[in-house]
């Protein structure tokens, strides 16, 4: 597949706002209404489709964390004082990002600072420290969905839950064999049928 950034003609480092405005320009230019009954009709439709796909692609990628998210003004990242550190973490440059974070003086260590520190620890496998920092971030800013998601996730893991566990339904190994109300009813109906076959009756009304 082609690079969606190339299709829109923007740099991969562009902010979400920039991408949106470029997309609007292109959409206006290639809108099928402009080419109504023109020989370029088909071509414009194709190009429009391509642009739409590329735009969706970029937005999805950024939302799922596949790309640096420092441009997402809606979530306040553009105002983030740690935008460059976020980018380093996304690129897995943990040494550099950790060094940058350590350089921040104590009095500027906000909830975001703790969240980012926790993310670095998490990526390194230092899970105890990660838990500590995520807890702190969540405590300092409980309304932030990003911090509380990270905190909840690690809390869930601490309780011994595992992603993709095929045994989960079995309550940790011990098989639960139950007999639901449905099972009982159908068993009774079955028994009734058998009795009727033999000339008797178990449930008089059916």
């Amino acid at each position, binding site marked *: 597949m082609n690079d969606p950034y190339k299709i829109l003609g923007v740099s991969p480092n562009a902010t979400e706002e920039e991408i949106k405005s470029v997309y609007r320009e292109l959409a206006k230019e290639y809108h099928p209404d402009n080419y109504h009954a023109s020989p370029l009709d088909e071509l414009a439709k194709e190009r429009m489709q391509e642009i739409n796909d590329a735009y969706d692609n970029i937005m999805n990628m950024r939302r799922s964390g596949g790309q640096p998210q420092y441009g997402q003004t809606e979530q306040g990242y553009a105002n983030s004082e740690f935008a460059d550190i976020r980018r380093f973490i996304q690129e897995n440059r943990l040494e550099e990002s950790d060094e940058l974070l350590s350089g921040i003086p104590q009095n500027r260590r906000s909830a975001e600072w703790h969240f980012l520190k926790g993310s670095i*620890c998490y990526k390194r*496998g*230092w*899970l*105890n*420290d990660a*838990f500590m920092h995520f807890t702190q971030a969540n405590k300092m800013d409980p309304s932030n969905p990003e911090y509380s998601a990270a905190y909840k996730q*690690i809390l*869930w*893991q*601490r*309780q*011994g*839950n*595992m*992603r*993709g*566990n*095929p*045994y989960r339904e*079995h309550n*940790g*190994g*011990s098989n639960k064999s139950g007999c639901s109300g449905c099972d009982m009813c159908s068993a009774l109906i079955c028994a009734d049928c058998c009795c009727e076959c033999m000339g008797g009756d178990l449930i008089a009304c059916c």
Partner: protein
Amino acid sequence: MFGYIRPFKPEMKMREYDVYKAIYCGLCKELGKSFGFMSRMTLSYDFVFLALIHMAVNDNVASLEKSRCIAHPFKKSPMAITNEAMSYTASCMVISIYYKLKDNLADDGFIERIPSAGMLPFSYGAFRKATKSYPDLSNNVKEYVDAQRSIEQQNCTSIDMSAEPTALIMAKIAQGVTDDSNFHDRLNRFGYLLGRWTYLIDALDDVKDDFKAKSYNPFIASMGIDILDDESLNHIFDVAKGSINMTASELASCYADLDVQKYRPILDNIIYLGLTHSLNTIINKHDKNTRTEEINERPL
């Protein structure tokens, strides 16, 4: 390295158990053949797991044969025929055992030294042979064992830091199972967490002994505990349980990302049930008041 990574037998199918056992026996035989009789004594479940991961990642299965073994000379039982996974595992094992023995020799008391001192000459020959095949791995293990020593000597108060060297050894060993670089990052993290899990659970299991012997223990050191009474022990178990669970959960996540197909039911059993079961066994040993269902488990 300590035998905590094992399947939860009651949930295994008979045929899965037979395959697991065949690989255990095959590994034992391979050890005897390549590294001498004494090295067989040191085989643990952890390395059977490593052999399974090796084969699963490389999309191989071991072929089995019926053969006799020293422990049961009159009965022929199925055994895995040596393959690359088993010779790699056996080499990793003798390398890490050798350094472990040497390490024990350096910090135990006189009485405790005797078994290690007795084993060391036997393991040296095996170690040299394995080092010849995997010189880089051997150097790495030595480096990390030294790092572990110095961390413990400094009485490190961070649980994460204390587990780091052992975790890094396992990361190297796990990464070494394949040349396919697509797997390297995932295997590295998988191994890291596996080593970390093993180190922490072993530390938890040894809390009382370490306290008595005044040896280093990450949980005691990180909480700065001076008196080991019921209250402080309960506190240690709470903290340790959270740390170990978190590690196992992240490990399971990495395992899911590896998405291996071969030996899947056995590996699933070990990851999702066996690890938790090992932890519960230790917790139950500590907390005898909570009666959980006793599961009759005999060694393989």
